């Protein structure tokens, strides 16, 4: 028994299989607990949809160039919270008056709730994220460029 277990453990080709088994066990156990999981997502950055707004689905109220109410975890740590959200570049403001169907485009352009979260309140996440990209591409391009010298 132990010898067989040792045999499985010592073969690194089986690594992902061992891991898969562990995950499956936990998830099967987890399905039973689903009924006890209550959905509680209205505490942070809840969203309200205004279908008639040109900024739909990202209109979070407030007037452009002014402050907007944003529900963050620690508002006291981000003194300018809400400014990014309400900010629209002249270009996106013009776009908003023109048509009702490019809300996503407008908000993805600098200034919008996602920018507020990504750059301001959870900026450290984005730092890590871009660093991951940086390192991973470093690895890939190192291997790629090295192919010629062998």
């Amino acid at each position: 028994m132990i010898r067989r277990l040792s045999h499985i453990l010592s073969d690194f080709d089986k690594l992902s299989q061992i891991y898969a088994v562990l995950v499956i066990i936990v998830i099967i156990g987890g399905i039973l607990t689903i009924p006890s999981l209550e959905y509680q997502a209205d505490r942070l950055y809840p969203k309200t949809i205004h279908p008639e707004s040109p900024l739909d689905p990202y209109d979070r109220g407030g007037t452009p160039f002014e402050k907007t109410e944003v529900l963050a975890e620690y508002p006291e740590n981000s003194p300018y919270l809400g400014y990014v959200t309400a900010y629209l570049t002249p270009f996106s403001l013009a776009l908003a008056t023109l048509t009702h169907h490019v809300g996503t485009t407008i908000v993805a352009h600098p200034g919008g709730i996602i920018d507020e979260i990504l750059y301001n309140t959870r900026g450290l996440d984005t730092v890590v994220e871009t660093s991951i990209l940086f390192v991973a591409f470093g690895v890939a391009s190192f291997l790629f460029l090295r192919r010629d010298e062998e």
Partner: protein
Amino acid sequence: MIRVFDQGIEGAGLFMIEFGDIVPYFSVYTATLFTFAIIFTLLATFSIPEKQMDIIFGGDAYYAKEIKPQDLRFQRFVAIACGTATLGAVVTGDIFNFTLFAAMIGITNIGIVASSRSHHVLNAAYQYGIVAMIACVPLFGGAAMILATTGTLSIWSLAGIGAAPILAKILLLLGVMGEGMAPFYIGKAEITRAQGAPFILMVHVSSLLLFLRVVEIILVI
């Protein structure tokens, strides 16, 4: 806000840094881990790698292997990135941020050995990389479930109230194990055969510190 340090788990709090919603904190425990991460990162930065004595299979000959300078530079770069990720992971006060750091440690761990030219080592690194990738499911899934069921990701808010579902905690632990811990150590053991001791050591330092940190998080929240 002080509940984190009042549970008799990690000792007194020292100070914290406020990055918006993400508030990294230094307690006696995390500060110790931080110190070790710094020490090993410095070792990886400043010490030259060993010259490995290599046995040629099928013969009696052995010689001291040299690492090519460009491979060395690359390994050092990734090792420092790995150290930085470890530093972040041991002090961050936010669960999703922690999972991101964990994922970064996973990818840098693969990167450190990627420059090895041995097929065996590369194969181990690849198998380990597959696990690191699929580990993203429990890792991010656990963090997402914590957010969905409690409405927050901050360890400060979660500390001591026991609101985080046990399933999410186990998933988080499983995710960190996939990014590089014990039962999957066999992948690491084969990786260890690659050259460049100070850098290879970073692989172990990062995964052990990550594991220590996730134990703390699971006990605290």
